[in-house]
């Protein structure tokens, strides 16, 4: 066996690449294709059984009904807000971890960043539900200032999602800054640049691909989320909720499929923009 493989490098390559390519082609693209096809069918609204008649009604409804535009825009804004907040929070933490902390502290901090990922997503979301409750810690802290908790809604959703996805932003930034040679910083300072100039003209351009990489995580994870918003979002609907409700309460698989092509399209646009910026090849 080893002999045959040794003598036929092509066979070796096929054996190595075959399973993952099959996975990509059949399971991944196949599922996407099945999704797209389902979106061209309709459902008998009374019995809930799928009728395989080709039509574009689902997409027409999607484009003409005001409510889906509003939900799409809201979801996009939440995703952008979460990404920006995470980038702003993650940068100083990653900078400290990579350039300031000692080796020993570096390890401790990496573990500290990773630990929340071991806790269940649901537990973390429910923890934020308690935080935003009218009798929770946020209300308690805001009280002396004459304020209250923002309650369950858009703000709570953004904060919770930003918290959930923060590690996915910190880690790429940390890895990017790790690779940044200290000599560059020293050279910049030797040439008379202050801390701010170095940051703006040396660190940020080199770090950009890492930021884009992190943003792909935070952006796409937010785009597809529907559980956290259900727990802390009050009545807020995101695309994920609309898909979930259409499928589960609406029992309308075809329309749910049509709806879920929106995030797929948004991500394709996002990825090709990221690719065009040249960020992806530096990953």
């Amino acid at each position, binding site marked *: 066996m080893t002999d045959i493989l040794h003598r036929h490098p092509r066979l070796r390559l096929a054996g190595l690449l075959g399973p993952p390519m099959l996975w990509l082609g059949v399971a991944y693209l196949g599922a996407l*294709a099945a999704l797209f096809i389902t979106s061209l069918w309709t459902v008998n609204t*009374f019995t809930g059984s*799928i009728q395989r008649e080709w039509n574009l009604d689902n997409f027409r409804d999607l484009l003409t009904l005001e409510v889906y535009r509003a939900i799409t825009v809201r979801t996009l804004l939440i995703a952008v807000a979460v990404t920006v907040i995470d980038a702003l929070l993650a940068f100083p933490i990653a900078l400290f971890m990579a350039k300031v902390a000692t080796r020993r502290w570096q390890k401790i901090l990496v573990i500290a960043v990773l630990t929340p990922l071991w806790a269940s997503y649901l537990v973390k979301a429910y923890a934020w539900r308690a935080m935003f409750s009218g009798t929770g810690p946020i209300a308690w802290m805001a009280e002396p200032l004459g304020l209250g908790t923002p309650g369950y809604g858009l703000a709570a959703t953004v904060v919770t999602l930003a918290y959930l996805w923060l590690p996915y932003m910190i880690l790429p930034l940390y890895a990017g800054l790790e690779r940044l040679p200290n000599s560059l910083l020293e050279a910049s300072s030797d040439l008379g640049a202050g801390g701010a100039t170095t940051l703006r003209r040396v660190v940020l351009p080199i770090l950009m691909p890492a930021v884009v990489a992190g943003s792909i995580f935070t952006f796409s994870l937010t785009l597809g989320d529907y559980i956290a918003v259900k727990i802390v979002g009050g*009545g807020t609907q995101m695309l994920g909720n*609309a898909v979930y409700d259409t499928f589960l309460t609406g029992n309308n698989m075809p329309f749910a499929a049509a709806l879920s092509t929106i995030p797929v399209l948004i991500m394709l646009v996002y*990825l*090709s923009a990221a690719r065009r910026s040249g960020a992806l090849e530096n990953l």
Partner: protein
Amino acid sequence: MRTRNRMGRPIRALAAAAALALVVAGCGTESGDTTPSADDTADAGFTPPDLPMATELGDFEGQVSLLAWPGYVEDGSTDPTVDWVTPFEEATGCEVSVKTFGTSDEAIQLMKSGEYDVVSASGDASLRLIAAGDVEPVNTDLVPNYADIWPFLKDRAWNSVNGQMYGIPHGYGANLLMYNTEVVDPAPTSWGAVFDPDSPYAGKVTAYDSPIYIADAALYLMKTQPDLGIQDPYALDETQLAAAVELLKTQGTIIGEYWSDYTVQLSSFKSGDSVIGTSWQIIANLAQGEKTPVEVVLPEEGSTGWSDTWMVSSKTENRNCAYAWMDHIASPEANAAATEWFGEAPSSSAACEVASEGHCEAFNAGDEAFAEELYYWNTPIEQCLDGRTDVTCTTYADWQQAWTEIKG
């Protein structure tokens, strides 16, 4: 050139997906052609799929899987004194597994999987289950305790088709207005308390997260705006639906959150994040058990409600255990215990003889006039349920669309 080449890759991937799509499409259409015409059943005046009915029962299969509203199947794990599953298991040897659901839509979705033998379906689910062929006709001769069921629950629009029963009635009751007694003052007597845009409890009002909640708004309009001419909250023409949607959108500004999971409602009443909203008797009982200061009231406008039926899946492999369960839950002891625990009227007249003192009186069990006053969950269809023939009514699909719009 390099850039263009790189840009080509996702396009090629898309092309591959499209090619696959065509292949799968071929298969899909092929199997579509062979699908029985049950799918094409028209929306109403429908003919249910011709499914066989059990004619005799055999040996128990040893297990039965139930899909039920929370509180309908209790084996002592919620409260050690509340248990009507163990006696059933001991008597029949049918091991019970249970899955609960929060809305009728969820139940329909889950029944399509074919993994459940019996379901407790409300009126807004039962007809859809029958029409889709997910449940089969029930031979009531094989359910001895069916004899004790109140006559006014038999052969009704939501549990039978053309005189053929599709299940065994479980119980019926009203959706109630629950409020926090420490915060809400004076005590509410009208559903207006949850529809008033200037409510002092803005941000702490809750509502049921299902399109069927539109009927609650329609009922309120029916009593407060007679000009709209609503006769039945489940028979709304377009103007009437638009009015209900308008009312619910206004309500949306004072809603803290919508609930469909009863444990979520329990927790938000406990923490004070919700202080008033539609609820069920069982949630109030559980909340009071946790020392949450809540009360429930049947508002003066009357209420929507439910009349539930145990139905057998057409794909069941545990038919004998399924029939045994339906007979058990209709037995006086189990029916009394289950409906007392949930807080609704029992379906069995014999249950009132063994139920706790006052239970049947509290829920007006057997009072046909009272039962007719409640607006039981029903599936809105094109043919107006109130008998109007000059207009088409909005369907449940319209309601679902409207519900998405209401939540915005």
